[in-house]
């Protein structure tokens, strides 16, 4: 991206002044290097989002922003229903509530080393991953409805996990106002055999070691110390979320003119929050969030079963669960007034600061854990939300690194087997049903996640707490 398009407002804050149909400015939080590396399309998409009705304050992009569809990935925007604000299926994305959860194991690296191979095999065989895999939980019509209404709460009620898990999931594990009846039979059919599955692409399950703790005080509150072993689960709402995204994108495109919405890009398809389509989408999207929360909860249960077999002394308590692709109703201070807004985060993480009432009491003193995923050979990070972030971008932060090269390019550059061998020499065991998938997801195909995380810290969006490095990775 050309720096001349932007006005620098701080070391890592760049503004795009309103022009044309923009209703608010664009704001990008990133280092100069990250801005240079961003596609021009990010600029275009940030400015396009700024033209949407009812947008408040600014159209934001996080340090890992890249070219998405409609909204940039790493885009954050909030809309006021009282100002004709909209909800956008493209502003949430296809993989609704794709997210990361982190489990503490109560183990240290030395406990894992002797059983790393059998642990990798067992996780790979117990947790379905990849294209065409089926989950072990088949939902009939009644259970599908209950799952879509209840989320992780439903899963715990069915015996997948513990009641105390719910405290450490956004929305306490159950997104309110979900409307399972707004979810089509097509979407439900796509999901009926996909509960408890990882999916493919950048989704994974990793056993990781805490390689470094940057903030011992917050680390102590989060319960992570150097040398500890943790488990990360990265997946979303699977086929159900994809189908909801597909269907509502189309209905928003075809009804935009009726709502007098001038779309600079069809991919920005949206509907007024207070319209029939808008309300239908919100009900379905919230059901998809519950689907993702239930999915990660079931996978958590499967992980616990594996550890119980191989390392029975493991405790596997939930540190936190965050979602990346959501639209949520939140209250934020706008011009000194507490205002109810519909906050879209697409490829961005909620990062509430200390004392926020939505946080569990045990975390309220320090702020929300923000979980940043890597890819196989690269680090992942635990951050914490900041006081400043609430004012900067509605309490939001980055979510990962983003690709630096296309899948095609990655395939030309790497062979899956070579990637697996190379990572094995570094002590990282990879298990995947697809060698081609491994090549496409090679660590070198992604941007440097550390640079993104540092930029988030420099911009005061979220502060580094710990760096995690993989020991075992199950890829879809």
């Amino acid at each position: 991206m050309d720096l001349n398009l932007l006005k620098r407002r701080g070391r890592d804050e760049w503004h795009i002044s309103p022009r044309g149909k923009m209703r608010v400015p664009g704001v990008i939080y990133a280092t100069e290097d990250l801005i240079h590396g961003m596609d021009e399309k990010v600029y275009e998409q940030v400015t396009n989002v700024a033209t949407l009705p009812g947008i408040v304050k600014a159209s934001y992009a996080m340090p890992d922003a890249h070219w998405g569809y409609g909204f940039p990935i790493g885009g954050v925007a909030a809309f006021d229903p009282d100002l004709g604000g909209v909800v956008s299926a493209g502003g949430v994305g296809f993989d609704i509530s794709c997210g990361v959860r982190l489990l503490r194991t109560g183990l240290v690296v030395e406990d894992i080393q002797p059983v790393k191979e059998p642990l990798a095999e067992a996780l790979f065989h117990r947790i379905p991953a990849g294209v065409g895999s089926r989950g072990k939980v088949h939902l009939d019509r009644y259970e599908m409805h209950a799952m879509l209404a209840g989320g992780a709460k439903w899963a715990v009620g069915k015996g997948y996990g513990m009641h105390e898990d719910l405290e450490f999931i956004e929305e306490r594990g159950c997104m309110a106002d979900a409307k399972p009846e707004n979810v089509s039979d097509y979407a439900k059919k796509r999901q009926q055999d996909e509960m408890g599955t990882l999916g493919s692409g950048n989704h994974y399950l990793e056993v990781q070691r805490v390689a470094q703790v940057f903030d011992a005080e917050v680390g102590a509150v989060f319960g992570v110390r150097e040398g500890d072993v943790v488990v990360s689960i990265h997946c979303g709402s699977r086929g159900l979320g994809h189908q909801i995204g597909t269907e509502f994108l189309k209905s928003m495109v075809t009804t935009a003119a009726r709502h007098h919405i001038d779309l600079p890009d069809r991919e920005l398809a949206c509907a007024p929050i207070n319209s029939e389509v808008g309300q239908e989408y919100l009900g379905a999207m919230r059901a998809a969030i519950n689907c993702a929360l239930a999915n990660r909860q079931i996978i958590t249960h499967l992980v616990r079963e594996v550890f119980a077999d191989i390392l029975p002394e493991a405790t596997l308590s939930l540190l936190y669960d965050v979602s990346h692709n959501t639209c949520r109703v939140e209250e934020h201070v706008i011009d000194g007034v507490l205002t109810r807004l519909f906050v879209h985060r697409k490829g961005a993480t909620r990062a509430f600061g200390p004392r926020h009432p939505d946080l569990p009491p045990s975390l309220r003193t320090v702020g929300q854990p923000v979980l940043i995923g890597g890819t196989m050979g690269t680090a992942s990070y635990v951050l914490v939300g900041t006081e400043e972030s609430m004012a900067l971008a509605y309490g939001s932060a980055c979510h990962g690194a983003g690709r630096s090269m296309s899948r095609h390019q990655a395939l030309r550059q790497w062979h899956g087997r070579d990637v697996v061998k190379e990572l094995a020499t570094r002590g990282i065991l990879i298990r995947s049903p697809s060698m081609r998938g491994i090549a496409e997801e090679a660590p070198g195909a992604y941007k440097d996640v550390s640079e993104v995380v540092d930029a988030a810290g420099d911009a005061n969006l979220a502060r580094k707490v710990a760096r995690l490095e993989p020991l075992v990775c199950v890829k879809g």
Partner: protein
Amino acid sequence: MIMQTPSSETAQGSWEHFPHEADIGVRGMGMTKETAFEQAGLALTAVITEPTSVAPAQAVSITCEAPDDELLLVDWLNALIYEMATRRMLFSRFSVRLNDHSLHATAWGERIEIIRHQPAVEAKGATYTELSVKQDEQGRWIAQCVVDV
């Protein structure tokens, strides 16, 4: 519905992928709009696996309607994604008939075998990004869009 594989060949066209920062673009090309749509279907399969590894053993009928060609292309690809997901199938041969803004097609393929097909990634949905259905200067039809993976 399941039918016999016909012996007739589809008209020759070509497909390719084009880069997108996070996802992947699919592009089908042919001397007719129908062929371009068929080749876009093949490009979609190639996102997931090597199309030549998929036997066109079972047929599935697909029907879509949309107000214009571009939305019809998205609907067509999304219908294929849906059939792949719910039937656990991959497709390697397509026959498309277009009439105004409705599409009637048959897709031939087989059930996924993970070891043999090595599916790399699942397609989540076809998007409106880089979406176009048009003829180039040589009269060749090009049908393309970005697919979220």
